[in-house]
């Protein structure tokens, strides 16, 4: 009796296994990609499911690079249809895609996202230039024309006008798209003001400009931005680096520091006067259009004016919208499934 039921259970289990092994048709749209784009894809997916009554798209946050890898894995129901990215697709990723038969991709520039450095409301407001941020956070800096290990321990060591307080900045780890963007938009920009570093050969220049210091003042705080927010709250001397949406949601606890005199705000990011913002993209696999039900409608919803336009629901989540003519071009390309050319680098 007992044994019989055991055998039954085993048979059921084996049957379940073999059914799952058969490749299955998929009726949900699958979205992967950057954690920065994740909230926007979430919003579009929920809106799409509510409006059309189609099965809810599956949105997964894998990081920009991880998303590209899965996205470029091939064509077919086993591979995702859309990937989000907090930077443009690289040539190496495009080549990976092509080598796996994913040749027809539409690139959609969704808008911009601001990066902010913030401090607790109890802490000191700061007004720094990108060069000063570089001096505070890089592993090697230029002092009197020589490149040395970063000697700055206090903000006032860099410039006497800055507060006399220890440098303590929490930021994302190297696996994060936010970190890539910070390095590109702040460190590499700040680097340009130092003649001795500019004079280095290409590899050494890249290394010096991109390496963050590891002697304490810069703390890698993990991917969870909420944790950084909590730690900033408990330590008014610490500064944190994260996407603008986290600052926006926590403005009762945090204030954004000024970069070159400009505070991070929706208006200043949109008009470009706040210097640290990055483009946000998503990529659509055109071979899946018409195969995965609803993909065309989903892309239309994602690029509609209600979503990515001014006052749209993506703006409410922290997206900085595109100017009108650029937006119209993007919407048209997305609708007509225009294939992107190979990236330049």
């Amino acid at each position: 009796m007992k044994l019989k039921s055991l055998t039954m259970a085993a048979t059921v289990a084996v049957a379940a296994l073999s059914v799952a092994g058969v490749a299955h048709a998929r009726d949900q749209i699958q979205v992967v990609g950057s954690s920065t784009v994740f909230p926007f894809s979430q919003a579009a997916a929920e809106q799409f499911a509510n409006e059309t009554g189609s099965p809810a798209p599956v949105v997964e946050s894998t990081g920009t690079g991880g998303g590209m890898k899965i996205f470029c894995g091939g064509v077919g129901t086993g591979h995702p249809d859309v990937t989000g990215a907090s930077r443009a697709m690289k040539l190496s990723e495009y080549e990976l895609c092509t080598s796996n038969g994913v040749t027809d991709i539409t690139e959609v520039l969704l808008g911009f996202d601001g990066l902010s450095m913030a401090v607790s409301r109890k802490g000191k407001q700061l007004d720094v230039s990108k060069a000063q941020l570089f001096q505070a956070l890089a592993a090697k800096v230029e002092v009197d024309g020589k490149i040395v290990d970063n000697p700055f321990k206090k903000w006032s060591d860099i410039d006497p006008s800055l507060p006399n307080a220890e440098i303590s900045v929490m930021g994302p780890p190297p696996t994060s798209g936010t970190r890539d963007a910070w390095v590109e938009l702040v460190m590499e920009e700040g680097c340009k003001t130092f003649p001795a570093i500019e004079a280095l050969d290409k590899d050494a220049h890249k290394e010096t400009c991109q390496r963050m210091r590891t002697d304490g003042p810069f703390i890698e705080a993990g991917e969870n931005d909420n944790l950084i927010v909590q730690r900033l709250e408990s330590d008014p001397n610490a500064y944190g680096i994260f996407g603008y949406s986290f600052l926006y949601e926590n403005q009762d606890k945090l204030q954004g520091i000024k970069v070159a005199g400009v505070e991070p705000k929706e208006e200043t990011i949109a008009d470009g006067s706040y210097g640290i913002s990055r483009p946000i993209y998503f990529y659509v696999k055109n071979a899946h259009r018409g195969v995965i039900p609803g993909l065309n409608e989903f892309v239309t919803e994602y690029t509609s004016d209600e979503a990515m336009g001014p006052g749209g629901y993506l703006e409410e989540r922290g997206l900085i919208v595109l100017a009108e003519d650029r937006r119209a071009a993007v919407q048209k390309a997305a609708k007509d499934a225009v294939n992107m050319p190979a990236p330049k680098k």
Partner: protein
Amino acid sequence: MSDTTHGPDRKERNAWFEADARLKRRHLADKRLRAYGIAAIVFALGMLATLVGTILITAAPAVTQTMVTFEVEVPEGSVDPANPSGGSYQTMLNASIARIFPDVDTPRELRELRQLFSNGGQYQLRDKILADPSLIGKTVSISFPMSDIGDQLHKGVIDRNLPPDFRRVNDTQIAWYDVLVERGQISSPLNWGLLFNADSRFPELAGLRGALVGSFFALLVCFLVSFPVGIAAAVYLEEFAPKNRLTDLIEVNINNLAAVPSIVFGLLGLAVFLNFFGMPRSAPIVGGLVLSLMTLPTIIIATRAALKAVPPSIREAAIGVGASKMQTVGHHVLPLAMPGILTGTIIGLAQALGETAPLLLIGMNAFITAAPDSMFNPSTALPTQIYIWADSPERGFTSRTSAAIIVLLGFLVCMNAIAIYMRKRFERRW
């Protein structure tokens, strides 16, 4: 002379003193040891209390959900009875909101006003009309959630005494909110949506249904696979297998397998089930299979212990009356060992329920606004849902993350309680 009489006496007395001092030291050491033990327990309990206390305090705001009630007019002709899902419900809702605040007319102000209410209101209205089309042409009363900021304002998480720059709501929004409170349109009932709604990007609409159903399917698969396989393996190893190098090696490996970090099983699942067998990403079936790999060693070890506890006299008696080996095991040993096996299985499943790392690798940390219909549909699980919410910027998710942790802990405590009850109730002492 006196020396000879006093000598041993003094020696004896010295020995007594020494013994006395030694005894005192030993008692002291004894007391110290006990004090260390008590201190360790107090420390551990203190940590536990702090942990649970913090979670409970953080979760408290998520126990209720601030709702707002509106009388919405659904004019005849605004909804096509043949296709009621196509009606413009947001417009109707906006009209009834505008009736209460007639002087709000600039687009900016309208947008700020709408920010107080959840986006879910229009869909609730739609569902109501879909369920009962006879409501078209009448006035419908709907009660739907305030938005995240409205909710936080009502619960006092957003402090209205702060300067306007420091908070998410501005002074006009607070004034509107006060009007609604005065009119009695705001209520805060228990937050059942937390358990019965699927996930959403809006904290006020987000719930655990998808995660609960996903975890259920994953555990079902895990049980269906690991229970029979685990018992079969354990019965063979314990009752039939010869004792030799090979079975020793297998035994050592099973014990080692129980100690392998779960992320390794996740990588294995990604490589084997997803990439090789081409199973669907994010599906509970794959999650269940990966978890069953983890649960198997636990079940095998528990089953073998339970089988060992059945005294040999039972087996000998069965064989003595002419039962075959299989009959002995199937009719006598296994039923007697069943309580122990089930206890081990439940504890193994409880472990699997709380496991996060392997599920992250096979994509069960996706955002899906619907609960899965079957084990082949994508879904999340309880721990991965907590992971997603913990990473969301909206303030409402802070309390909901803690509330979800309490739900998960609740299930774990229940499962362990069942295991303990079964052990106490059915276990036989020989």
